[in-house]
């Protein structure tokens, strides 16, 4: 029988069939962070249950921890320190490897996962965080869960999961210069809608996906959750296998060869049948920027803000109007008509070395500086990313252009640690959610690629590299 990649990974991890659609699945890796992982660990402890395999679980500090240089356990949010201290003691008590604030490898959970070889091709990985689907970029079956399911996985090394349906989204064509993986996924969400992936595991395929770097693939899969998909995944290829050579927790020695042989089979059979298919030609797309309060509210950076009356369904008329009122943006205007107050480069979507390089190259070549009215900051995704960037002088490029250069963490993607943009500020951001209030009270977030973020920071208004020409 012909199988999809997700079918294969499902059978490979199925311990027991529970009902027609539900299985007890083996979970290879569990990653926790101090925001929601702390709750799971404390609940286990309270019920006197043990972490079944501590060596399969990892924990980092990223969501609440401060990202200003010289940071400590203290955060702007008065109770933030409680989360950090509680997580530290719970992780130590459970003998889980913790990437603590002072650990040179500390960083954002979904940046660390592939970087350290914790997520591997064909592995199952869960984390109490919706962006866990990022790891589909290296061919892992990875998805976000709540704290209670995390407790279950920690205690039993398994989860009771309803099997998603199979959806293949083929993206074909050569991406135009200046169009990145971030633009690609924003375009897909715009086309499929914020609920377009519900009930499905989405396999991204096609020539545009194959030609993405490993880091680009992580960016693409990162936002599968914004389609409300169970997860996103890309069949791993030689580029991915090579990426894992000599990573800390990846196989080595004789098992490296064994793993490589095993990973070769991780792809959908040529005649596998998907429950749903969609093919998009992406050879003509431009940079994408969101205008509203859902990632599906996205247009070409050079496009015109749509009129609510043109929204596809009844409920969307009112939601478009509501979004435009919140965003203080009018139909018929252009994104370039809107000055910005801040620019943010970071998060599990776009804080890897290739993102930072792309932005720094723009600054180097254009010689542009951040507009005087704009607060701009760059937050590397991990300690390793930060050190690698500093070794190339990227930190200096950012600082000289007027960007703050921060310590690794989720930072202003949302304001869990208590740091926020000024009330009502308009922000261009490489993050994944433009929800109301996500980056601070009344803050108006526009999602975009690293390139659009630096271009806008320097221009002082919403723009992309392409539309500046």
């Amino acid at each position, binding site marked *: 029988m012909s199988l999809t990649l997700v079918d294969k990974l499902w059978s490979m991890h199925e311990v027991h069939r529970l009902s027609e659609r539900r299985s007890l699945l083996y979970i290879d890796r569990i990653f926790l962070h101090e925001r929601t992982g702390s709750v799971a660990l404390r609940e286990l402890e309270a019920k006197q249950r043990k972490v079944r395999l501590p060596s399969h679980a990892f924990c980092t500090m990223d969501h609440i921890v401060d990202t200003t240089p010289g940071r400590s356990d203290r955060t702007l949010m008065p109770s933030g320190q409680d989360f950090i201290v509680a997580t530290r003691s719970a992780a130590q008590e459970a003998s889980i490897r913790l990437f603590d604030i002072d650990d040179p490898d500390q960083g954002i959970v979904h940046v660390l996962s592939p970087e350290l070889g914790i997520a591997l091709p064909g592995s199952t990985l869960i984390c109490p965080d919706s962006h866990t689907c990022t790891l589909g970029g290296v061919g892992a079956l990875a998805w976000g869960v*709540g704290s209670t399911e995390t407790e279950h996985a920690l205690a039993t090394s*398994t989860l009771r999961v309803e099997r998603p349906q199979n959806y293949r989204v083929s993206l074909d064509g050569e991406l135009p210069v200046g169009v990145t993986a971030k633009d690609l996924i924003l375009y897909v969400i715009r086309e499929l809608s914020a609920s377009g992936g519900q009930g499905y595991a989405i396999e991204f395929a096609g020539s545009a996906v194959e030609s993405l770097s490993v880091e680009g693939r992580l960016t693409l899969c990162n936002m599968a959750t*914004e389609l409300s998909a169970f997860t996103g995944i890309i069949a791993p290829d030689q580029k991915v296998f090579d990426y894992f050579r000599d990573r800390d927790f990846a196989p080595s020695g004789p098992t490296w060869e064994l793993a490589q042989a095993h990973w070769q089979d991780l792809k959908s059979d040529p005649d596998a049948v998907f429950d749903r298919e969609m093919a998009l030609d992406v050879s003509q797309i431009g940079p994408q920027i969101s205008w509203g309060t859902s990632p599906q509210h996205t247009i070409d950076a050079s496009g015109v803000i749509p009129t609510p009356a043109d929204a596809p369904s009844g409920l969307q008329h009112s939601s478009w109007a509501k979004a435009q009122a919140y965003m203080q943006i009018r139909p018929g205007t252009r994104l370039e008509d809107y000055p910005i107050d801040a620019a943010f480069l970071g998060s599990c979507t776009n804080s890897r070395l290739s993102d930072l390089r792309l932005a720094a190259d723009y600054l180097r070549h254009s010689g542009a500086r951040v507009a005087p009215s704009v607060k701009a900051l760059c937050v590397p995704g991990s300690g390793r990313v930060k050190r690698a960037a500093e070794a190339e002088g990227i930190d200096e490029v950012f600082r000289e252009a007027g960007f703050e250069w921060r310590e690794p963490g989720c930072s202003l993607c949302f304001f869990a640690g208590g740091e926020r943009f000024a009330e009502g500020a308009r922000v261009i951001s490489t993050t994944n959610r433009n929800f109301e209030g996500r980056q601070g009270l009344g803050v108006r977030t526009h999602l975009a690629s690293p390139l659009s973020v630096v271009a806008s920071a320097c221009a002082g208004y919403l723009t992309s590299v392409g539309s500046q020409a």
Partner: protein
Amino acid sequence: MKVFNEHVGVAMPLPEDNINTDVIIPSREMRTVSKSGLADGLFAPWRYLDPDSREENPSFAMNKAAYRDASILIAGKNFGCGSSREHAVWALMEAGFKVVIAESFATIFYNNALRNGLLAIALDRRLIDALAAPVRDSGAVDVLSVNLTDQTISAGAMVVRFEIDPDAKEMLLEGMDEISLTQRNALLIEAFERSDRENRPWIYLND
């Protein structure tokens, strides 16, 4: 986990698609490392004109006299999308909600609800409108009666049937502890590991 069987209560409509968990409970409202103390922050961005001073927004449903005691929430498509925070479920429950009816749910929210005894019912727009019609017409408060055993929702004489996975239904009806349930399969898990270790030795790090 709480047992769910049947519930009669006031239904509050929030007729919007894609209500995300940042709106249900903003990050800044999750102040302690626990599952409680969240009710006050429920829907804070919409419920308060000023979330800091807690000045109420009179046009938001929760602040209307008719819905002060609402225990059933009715929404559009993709309810609970966004962040995986289980706090969204805990906040709803702490504020007295027992049932959420929506056109569809984000998977993580649905699974979180199930594991806490909050009944999440996915229902066709047509049926949701039919249940809400008596309210719109009379201006009265909509009292719905939800029965999980029979899988029905009643509004006066109108009865609507809903679907739920049999395994999920049993979990809710019995308030089962999922971990204990799975631990009954401990031997199966160990057997899986023995054979899997042969195929994928690199997965098994030293303990």
